[in-house]
Structures are given as structure tokens and as C-alpha cells.
């Protein structure tokens, strides 16, 4: 039995690097410091959903084959395709992504990563107006106002609050953990009373009424000392429950709301009572909190990038931060999902000049979101083969886009059986990056961190990097032979 300290967790964009693992008999036996998702991931390395051998579809069924056969067949598919899609990349290391770029260029395909269905619009927004941002260390030590806009870190980045924002003890700002505990205790007390009322032990004083949007009358926050936490969302998320101030915006009206906030920041008056369902007096409180803070940060998520307006929402959110910087210090940061989606954007940009949706079919990289992005290509039914690595588009793309992906030969590289591997034509099992293979990943604030190898992969399993290099070599061989014949 051994203990490995300071392991980086390969789950979400937080890349928590303080995980402590106990290894017994070549398997992870205990996970310390991690969140629920982190535990699930580290324990998943020896569960029954692992793929143990390469598979190939023959007569409609996936049957076991050797790596050599699967690599040979995949290389043939990619080399012979005229417009293949190479998609995924966000849950693997930068080393594999680098080979992915070379492979895409070699086969003249489209290289896209999961940012396209995640923070792609944020990248477009940043390309439009730039971004005033910082690292998470700055936030941890200095930020006294944290705003989560359209994101729910409690669910998607569970340790974000604890490590980088409200519940962390920084050098200049303390943790708000105690005030949260008090809030939880008060809520638990109320719940107990209600339960006693329901059971008839206490006389019923509060008949049950369905909750309404008007219940969210936020308290006066300016009086609060210490870090303030504000959440803006269309529904009361887990994070909103923790927040000091929750603003419930009507669906699809974030753009309108942010523009109204910008007007208030510039001391203009609004001659309406409500904007996007939020009373202007609440907005004024939000703006007062924003302009009176020492250092504020806005974190934003899918609530902005996937709702109506998409990249325009990000444009205007960044512009708000620019305006706020005339009054105080403010920064903004996207809440990146997969642990190395930032790395995928970074590596692709180094190598080709563009972060996602890169088309190599002309022999040089071309980037035109809406045309060279994978969902659009699938909807126009233009691709004739696909390689999916470290992601699950069959689960996460709209059904009609998947229909075309499945019609053509589909190569899948993944450690686990998922919806995409179930419908793939060639399925490669891979070792799990960050558990069975060391590598590099980028945190959501663009800080690169090393991933550790803590256990050995199942015997004979190759890593993403090795599988891709072997496919790339084979593709080059095939191209060379074709040239010789010609």
C-alpha cells in the first residue's frame, strides 16, 4: 500500500492538484480531498465499464481484434476519406492533442474540440473584444466580490468555491465558510419545523405554497463584511442557494440585463421598473456592490454561451468588465468544463493559429465557425468519416447531428464504453490520462499543470498518444505508397 500526494484530478477545468490517493494492489483504494466526481473518476479505472480490447464492427456486431488490425483499418479509413472529422480532444493530454493536429493536417480533415458545444461562443466573444482576466491564484488571495453568471459550480466544478473563491482562505481575503454553515443550520431548522407541521406535531402556521419567482427578494448585501458571492441564473441552482445575493433573470434575457447593468455602472438612469424580470432596485444593489468592491471577478458558464444571443452575451459581459475597470479592479473568466479543453484550444492555436473548428481540407488551416465547426458539417452531411477521441458526441450532440456521424465509418478512442463507443465501427481502448498516463493539462485560467501516472494501465492497453502516433505513421505509409504508385 502506498500513498501518492499532490495528484492532479483529471475531471473538470479546476484541475485541483491537492488530491491524495491510497494505492493498494495496483488500484486506487482511497481518494482524499476530492469531490464526488473526482472520486468517481479515480475509482473508474478498474470498473466493469472499461473497454479491454480493440473492437471492430463486423456484420453489425463489435468483435475483438488486435491493435495492429484496428490501427491499419483506421489509417485506411482516414487516408481514403476526403473530408474526415477529428473531434473530441478535451479529456486527453496536450501531448496527444499535438499529434492530433499533425494527423488532421495529414488527412486534410476538420479538427474540432468540445469547446464548440461549450465555450466556443466565449472564444468568439474574446476574439471580438479581448478579455481582462487573471489567474485563479489572484482570485483566491484578493477577490472580495465573486459573481457566478449562468453557471453552477456547485454541480459542475464542485471545489471551485472551496479552492479559488468564496470558501478559501487567501492572503488578503478570508473564507466565508462559517457564514455558509450558519445559513445551512438555519435552513435545516426551518425544514425541521415544516416537517413537524406536516406530521401534525406542531400546529400548522405555514401552509404549503408553491415557490414563486418573487420570493427571491435579495437581502441588503452592501452591509456584509468579507467576500460577497452573487449568482445570476434563470433558476435557483445549488450555488444560488449558497449565495449572498441571487438574481433570477428571465430565460434568454441576459444580454438585456447586462446592458442595463452597464448603463447603471455609467450612472445612467433606467426609466423602467424591471429589466429581464429583475426589479431595477435590485440591479442598483448589484451595481453598488460591483463598483464598491476592491477586486471583483465574474465567472460565466453555459447559461450565457448556450442561451439566445450566445457569443453576443459574452461580448457584452466582457464589455461590462471593461466599463467596471474604469471604477475599480475587475476580471472575467469562463468556467471551462473538461479538464483539458483549455489545453486543446491552446495546443491547436500554437500549431494552426486557431483554437477550434479548423479545416485542413485546402492543405492549410482555415477557421470559420458556423462553416468549419463539427455540428454544422454534420448537419450539412459533408463529412465522410469520423475519429472521436476522449469525448462522447453521441451523448452530447443533438440527435440529428449524430445521425450523419453514425452513417459514415466512425473510429472511437476512449477508456470506457459510452454511447459513442457503442455505435462506433472501430473502438480503441486507451489508458486513462492522469491516472494511468502522465501528461500536461491546462487549468481554466491557462495555467499548465502536470498530470501524474498513479497506477499501471490494464496489460497491453496503449495511451491516446501512442494510438494516434501509430495511426499517423500508418497514414503516412499509405500516402507514400499511393505516391509511389502514381
Amino acid at each position, binding site marked *: 500500500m502506498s500513498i501518492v500526494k499532490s495528484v492532479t484530478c483529471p*475531471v473538470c477545468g479546476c484541475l485541483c492538484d491537492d488530491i491524495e490517493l491510497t494505492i493498494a494492489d495496483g488500484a486506487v483504494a482511497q481518494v482524499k480531498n476530492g469531490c*464526488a*466526481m473526482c472520486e*468517481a473518476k479515480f475509482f*473508474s479505472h478498474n*470498473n466493469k*465499464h472499461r473497454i479491454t480490447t480493440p473492437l471492430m464492427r463486423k456484420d*453489425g456486431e463489435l468483435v475483438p481484434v488486435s491493435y495492429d488490425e484496428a490501427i491499419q483499418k483506421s489509417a485506411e479509413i482516414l487516408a481514403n476519406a476526403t473530408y474526415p472529422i477529428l473531434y473530441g480532444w478535451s479529456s486527453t493530454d496536450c501531448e496527444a492533442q499535438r499529434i492530433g493536429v499533425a494527423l488532421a493536417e495529414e488527412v486534410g480533415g476538420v479538427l474540432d474540440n468540445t469547446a*464548440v*458545444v461549450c465555450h*466556443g*461562443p466565449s472564444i*468568439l466573444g474574446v476574439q471580438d473584444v479581448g478579455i481582462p482576466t487573471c489567474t485563479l491564484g489572484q482570485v483566491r488571495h484578493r477577490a472580495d466580490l465573486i459573481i457566478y453568471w449562468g453557471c*453552477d459550480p456547485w*454541480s*459542475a466544478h*464542485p471545489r471551485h468555491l472551496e479552492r479559488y473563491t468564496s470558501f478559501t482562505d487567501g492572503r488578503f481575503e478570508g473564507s466565508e465558510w462559517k457564514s455558509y454553515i450558519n445559513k445551512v443550520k438555519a435552513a435545516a431548522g426551518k425544514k425541521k419545523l415544516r416537517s413537524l407541521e406536516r406530521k401534525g406535531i406542531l400546529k400548522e402556521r405555514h401552509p404549503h405554497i*408553491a*415557490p*414563486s*419567482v418573487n*420570493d427571491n427578494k435579495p437581502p441588503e448585501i452592501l452591509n456584509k463584511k468579507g467576500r460577497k458571492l452573487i449568482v445570476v441564473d*434563470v*433558476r*435557483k441552482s*445549488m450555488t444560488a*442557494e449558497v449565495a449572498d445575493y441571487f438574481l*433570477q433573470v428571465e*430565460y434568454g434575457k441576459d444580454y438585456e440585463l447586462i446592458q442595463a447593468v452597464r448603463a447603471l455602472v455609467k450612472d445612467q438612469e433606467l426609466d423602467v421598473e424591471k429589466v429581464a424580470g429583475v426589479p431595477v432596485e435590485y440591479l442598483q444593489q448589484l451595481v453598488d456592490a460591483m463598483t464598491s468592491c476592491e477586486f471583483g471577478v465574474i465567472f460565466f458558464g*453555459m*447559461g450565457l*454561451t*448556450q*442561451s*439566445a444571443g450566445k*457569443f453576443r452575451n459574452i461580448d457584452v459581459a466582457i464589455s461590462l468588465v471593461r466599463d467596471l475597470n474604469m471604477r475599480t479592479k475587475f476580471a472575467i473568466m469562463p468556467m471551462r468544463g473538461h479538464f483539458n479543453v483549455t489545453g486543446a484550444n491552446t495546443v491547436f492555436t500554437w500549431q494552426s493559429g486557431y483554437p477550434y473548428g479548423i479545416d485542413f481540407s485546402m492543405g492549410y488551416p482555415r477557421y470559420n*465557425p*458556423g462553416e468549419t*465547426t*463539427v*455540428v*454544422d458539417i454534420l*448537419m450539412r452531411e459533408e463529412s465522410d468519416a469520423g475519429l472521436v477521441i476522449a469525448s462522447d458526441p*453521441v*451523448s*452530447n*450532440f*443533438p*440527435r*440529428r*447531428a*449524430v*445521425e450523419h456521424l*453514425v452513417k459514415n465509418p466512425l473510429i472511437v478512442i476512449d477508456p*470506457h*464504453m*459510452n*454511447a459513442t463507443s*457503442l*455505435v462506433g465501427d472501430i473502438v480503441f481502448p486507451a489508458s486513462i490520462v492522469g491516472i494511468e498516463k502522465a501528461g500536461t493539462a491546462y487549468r481554466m485560467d491557462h495555467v499548465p499543470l502536470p498530470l501524474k501516472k498513479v497506477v499501471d494501465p490494464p496489460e497491453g492497453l496503449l495511451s491516446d498518444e501512442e494510438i494516434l502516433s501509430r495511426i499517423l505513421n500508418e497514414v503516412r505509409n499509405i500516402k507514400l505508397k499511393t505516391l509511389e504508385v502514381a
Partner: protein
Amino acid sequence: MVQEKLNLTLLTGRTIEQGVGKESGKGTQEYFQSTTMVYMDETDMNKLELRNNDHVLLSTEEGSVVLRAVRHPRGAMPGLVYIPYGPWANAICSTKTTSIGMPSFKGTPVEVQPALNQPILTLKELLRKEFGR
């Protein structure tokens, strides 16, 4: 007033249960349970006379899917339904990328009606129905 069906707005997104399910493996029961549910507002559920865990049929221009209706545990979100990401949510999500590559995972108009006797498809059944594999 009891209604037969409601026209609402579909949002998809993350929950911690779905996160744990996806990391454990997409074939696990945790993943199935956490992605085959739909959070609804209490007043909307009352309009359809739904109880917690009743099955509902959600239909959009893209297709339809049967899921388990669960009362949203915190606050109100009238007019909205929220499905955790997964193949079931994506069976009915809009593919409109508004020319920037991003499908409309939030904001698809959806019709919701009770479907008490209709079963929820398993992952394999769903893939077979949609893609024939």
C-alpha cells in the same frame, strides 16, 4: 386548472449526480438515473396533475422522449424544464447553431404531457431506436 399539455422552454445542463454518473461510466445505473429525469416547476407540475417521478412525454421539432418528472427542489422556474445533459436530453435538443457552431442546448420550445404508462428507454434501446445500432 388541470391541463392536458403545456408548452414550455427546454434547458439542458449539469447536475452533480450526472457528473458523478458520467465519470463512473456511461453504462452505470447512476448515469441512467441522473440523465433520464426532468426538473419541472411545482406550479407547472400541478397544472398537469403530476406527482414526483411520474413519467412525461417531451416533444420538440426534433423528436420526443419519455422521462421522469421531478419537482425542482429550489425556488421557482415557471415555464422552464431542465434536463441534465445526456443522450436523452439530446434526443429533443435543437440543432440550430445560429451560424456559429453552437447548437441551441438551452431554449428549445417543448411540449410536455403526462405519459404515465410509457417506459423510459435504456441507453441501448435509445441508440437502437435512433441510429439502428
